[in-house]
């Protein structure tokens, strides 16, 4: 009885994967971003920090595919090198939020009562600080820079993950198959690895893509405010800030980094939506 239905499930999921255009477009954008960052370690068209006053404000084309900025620096090279910061901050923010969120949410769900209450109130307090506010606090202590910015953005994402993990674990801990496993003598560690984590992975994956996107926007904002990545290292937010004062001479130095941020965030959001559609049949086709 089970076998035919499972076959049907597989084909249906396969068909769903094929029509999930948002998932594929999102994934393609991310692969492109990762490729740009990786290639930048071995090849960039020009030195991203080479100043050449003769070449300032070049429009796109010829020697400079995307044009140059107010110092004559190649915009494509700077964008490519800047994508490293984008990926680094995104990955680190997700790593911090996910690991701390699993720990806090897991402990809260497992121990309940005042442990749960206390931890969740701390999460509420942390959630009252938007990433930018936390970053401002941290930047005032540690000084501005990529590390303090990443830490702040990562910390700000902990409450979302902690709440997700807690809610999921609580539901699962009361599920029949977990009760059955426990009755069969499974210990906490086994229940965690075999039942709780695999059944929470999908929802965490979706949240991770959303967090990644928000982290990129937050990093760009921090760098724009001068609290994130410091010059001369190129970062997309910083490039925008520098370009703003020369907008009347050339719009390109401001156009590309903004477009790069928007397309990357769009890609991550599309990927998240696509993943959610595939992994969670309840929200499908909405």
């Amino acid at each position: 009885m089970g076998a035919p239905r499972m076959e049907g499930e597989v084909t249906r999921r396969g068909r769903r994967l094929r029509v999930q255009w948002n998932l594929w477009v999102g994934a393609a954008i991310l692969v492109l971003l990762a490729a740009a960052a990786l290639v930048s370690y071995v090849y960039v068209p020009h030195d991203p920090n080479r100043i050449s006053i003769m070449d300032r404000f070049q429009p796109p084309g010829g020697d400079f595919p995307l044009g140059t900025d107010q110092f004559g620096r190649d915009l494509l090279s700077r964008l490519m090198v800047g994508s490293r910061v984008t990926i680094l901050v995104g990955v680190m923010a997700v790593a911090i939020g996910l690991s701390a969120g699993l720990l806090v949410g897991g402990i809260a769900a497992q121990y309940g009562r005042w442990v749960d209450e206390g931890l969740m109130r701390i999460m509420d307090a942390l959630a009252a600080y938007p990433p930018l506010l936390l970053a401002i606090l941290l930047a005032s202590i540690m000084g501005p820079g990529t590390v303090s910015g990443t830490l702040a953005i990562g910390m700000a994402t902990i409450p979302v993950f902690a709440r997700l993990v807690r809610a999921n674990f609580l539901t699962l801990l009361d599920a029949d198959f977990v009760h059955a496993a426990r009755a069969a003598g499974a210990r906490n560690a086994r229940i965690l690895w075999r039942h709780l984590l695999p059944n929470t992975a999908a929802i965490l994956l979706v949240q991770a893509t959303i967090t990644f996107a928000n982290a990129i926007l937050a990093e760009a904002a921090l760098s724009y405010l001068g609290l994130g990545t410091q010059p001369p290292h190129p970062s997309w937010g910083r490039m925008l800030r520098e370009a703003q004062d020369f907008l009347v001479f050339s719009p390109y130095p401001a156009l590309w980094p903004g477009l790069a941020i928007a397309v990357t965030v769009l890609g991550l959001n599309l990927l998240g939506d696509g993943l959610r559609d595939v992994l969670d049949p309840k929200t499908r086709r909405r």
Partner: protein
Amino acid sequence: MQAYLIRRAITFAVTVWLAASLAFATLLVIPGNPAQIILGIDASPEAVAAVERALGLDLPPWTRYVHWLADLVRFDLGASLVYGVSVWSLIAERLRVTLPLTALALGLALLIGIPLGLFAATRRGSFADLLATAFAQAGIATPSFWLGIFLILVFAVNLRWLPAGGFTPWSQNAARAFLSLLLPAVALGTARAASLTRIVRSAALEVLSADYVRTARAKGVPESRVIRRHVLRNALISVSTVVSMEVAQLLAGAIIVETVFTLPGLGALVLSAVSNRDFPLIQGIVVCMAAAILVLSLLTDVLYAYLDPRIRYS
């Protein structure tokens, strides 16, 4: 409901206390002596001692914490190190820019997001729906400061319709003050409008497939009435739950947008406080913003319980 309100008030007080303590803790974990950091390494020991006394750093941490909390309860945020006046008065002055900006952006977001989301949901799968969804996706992904930069280029530099930045005080010329907030509000509100469009669309789609909507239609209730009485009303409940989060985003976003348009709001104040290492001022602003966000989420929860009779709080 009453028991729920009391319990909610207690958790609210605890959360505000924790959030404020977090801001206080940051001063404790600063490596080295904050007074030395403020004055620089060349400062004389006397000057450092004077700043230490001004900050109360000569007292043990617990005493400082208790003093700080006692002041906070009386809404006393201390005095700024740089300006020498009370933090509270500095914040109040800057709110004259930041609050209208946030309100304008929120108004814009609601004005665009609710009708557009509803429109898209009722025409699901159509080209109009696709356009609305595309706007939502693009709007969420576009950084507000980038949008702001290009709004300045088009509407201030090229067309010369609106000021490129700066702010005319309300007392001088209220109309000009309003105009100087218009572009910033668009830059700030677009992403929120996009996010609301998405939320309203998905909430309305859920309601549209509900049994009571089918019943209403089967009874012959006109479609416009179905949309107004059933779909909009129920979709608005889900909007009310996210409005506090949207306002939190707007407040944080205002810091950046104010920088783009050189507006003398809270954002400019907090940034100058960071570069001056004016710790009481930074703490004050951060605590105020976090408290405002918590108050909003409390109001949302209560409003939600009031709006949706299906929610029962025991």
